[in-house]
């Protein structure tokens, strides 16, 4: 930071003066991210249940998710704009499509990964199928599922910056405005970029902490 300030690239006073705007942008960034990941998660849960019940649908669902993931975010926003305009709706719809592949994959893989003898014991003891899923398979699949949520969240946080192009952007606003202004304002660019990275790392760490809280059994030492 000091080096950058020295190189006249970074102006701390700008940060101080605009802290309000920075916080607003951060909030917008968080809102977009959380909305997209939560909706993505709900959709993915539904899709996963379908995939788990009818195995033949798993590959097609993954392929569809893969296609959606492959389409560049810019193209996705562009395709939606004529229909849903430069709005949060456009952004969220596009962002959600990027979460589907990783979330469905991890939910299904996680649940499949629960050892078969545990599932057999659960059934043998008298849990109905739904209880087996919710009370046994889901808790044990959490590490893998949360890993998927972490990846989805970090990815989305990065993609939110691109929504600057359609009038949103969260912290990406600063990247765009820092660049579009004349003369170029490096401070904004750097703030936007590094704040976004920081947000991503924070989100990742928070989710990791959440996972630890939700899985107390995995933190105990294992008997040798």
């Amino acid at each position, binding site marked *: 930071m000091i080096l950058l300030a020295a190189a006249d690239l970074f102006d701390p006073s700008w940060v101080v003066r605009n802290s309000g705007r920075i916080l607003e942008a951060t909030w917008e960034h968080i809102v977009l991210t959380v909305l997209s990941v939560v909706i993505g998660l709900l959709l993915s849960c539904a899709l996963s249940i379908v995939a788990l019940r009818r195995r033949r649908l798993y590959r097609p669902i993954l392929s569809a998710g893969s296609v959606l993931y492959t389409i560049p975010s810019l193209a996705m926003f562009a395709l939606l704009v004529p229909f849903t305009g430069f709005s949060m709706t456009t952004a969220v719809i596009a962002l959600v499509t990027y979460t589907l592949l990783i979330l469905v994959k991890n939910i299904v893989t996680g649940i499949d990964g629960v050892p078969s*003898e545990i*599932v057999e*014991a659960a059934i*043998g003891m008298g*849990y109905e199928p739904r209880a087996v899923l919710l009370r046994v398979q889901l808790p044990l699949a959490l590490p893998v599922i949360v890993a998927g949520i972490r990846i989805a969240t970090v990815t989305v946080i990065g993609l939110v910056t691109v929504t600057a192009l359609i009038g949103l952007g969260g912290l990406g606003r600063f990247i765009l405005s820092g660049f579009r202004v004349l003369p170029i304002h490096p401070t904004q660019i750097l703030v936007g970029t590094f704040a976004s990275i920081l947000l991503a790392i924070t989100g990742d760490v928070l989710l990791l902490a959440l996972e630890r809280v939700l899985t107390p*059994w995995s933190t*105990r030492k294992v008997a040798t």
Partner: protein
Amino acid sequence: MTGTSPPIGIVRVIELEHVTKQYDRESAPAVDDLTVTFASRELTVLVGPSGCGKTTTLKMINRIIEPTAGSIRIDGADVLRRPPHELRREIGFVIQRVGLFPHRTVGENIATVPEMLGWDRARIRTRVNELLELMDLDAGLRDRYPAQLSGGQQQRVGVARALAADPPVLLMDEPFGAVDPIVRDRLQAQLLELQAQLQKTIVFVTHDVDEAILLGDRIAILATGGVIAQFDTPHAILRSPAGDFVRSFLGNERHLKRLATIAVRDADIVTGPVVKRSMTHDQVHAVGVSEGTDWAALVDDDGTLEGWVWLRDRSSADGFPEDAIHQFRVIVSPEQTLRSALDAIVANRNQVAAVIEDGKLLGMLFIENISRQLLP
């Protein structure tokens, strides 16, 4: 205790009638038209080579596998009539890899079925403690997670979990197959003790014929397709195997295995040459003559064994001096099997074992007596 055995009057007979299991992609049924009855309060073992359908049969009783045809009744009630999950809550189920829930503590694992049945917390807590004690598990393990337990402990928790709601029927699928031999011996002994106490109807699957002989009140030897080759007590099967399949399945040392089904107590123990400290010289001499031996066991007046002596070492003055008393090399208890007694005798290059209970000499077991047990 909240229920040690089913109230007298409740019979838990398991009846399979013309039960068949046919898988779609297979040409032959896994279980073909099986009709058999497992008696109430008995430990029935299903044993046979891999693929004979023993596990399939077991799992059809609690509908983990659904029969293709035929009927299964527990106590007269058709198991297919009830919702499977309700049925299973009344049947204890123990599998080889245990399947303890890693995300729950030992106590919570054991409490699984009681919780499903809506027991109140206090009752559950009491029951969990009872079971921990019953299975010889330290009470402190209750709040540990399964990953922190050894293999043998996990297996015992698995059994405790199956017994939690005190089901009258217990299904066990090769439960001791994945632990080491020493642990397995303990678990088998523990199961026998439990069954003596709890008297449940147990169906036990294993591929190990020795385990079957040890545990079963009756054994069903199955061939491919769930076909019963022989269904009888271990002793009867060993004495008269029905056909070549059974004979070869029992293995080569069939007669030794038979010995394993007879306890020393039930065998032909003779009194043997015994002298008491208080006997006179003439009495001692008389024992030697009637038994035809030049030695005898020496007991004191209340029957406690002191050792054995050469009869000639009796001096007229002090009876038998201390240095004349030798110890029996082989001592067995009445609860031991004849097989282990024979093993001890042979191992010590001897010909006789002293049968001792609480220090008292009950009698003697000679090698000839043992082989005489095998006569039909």
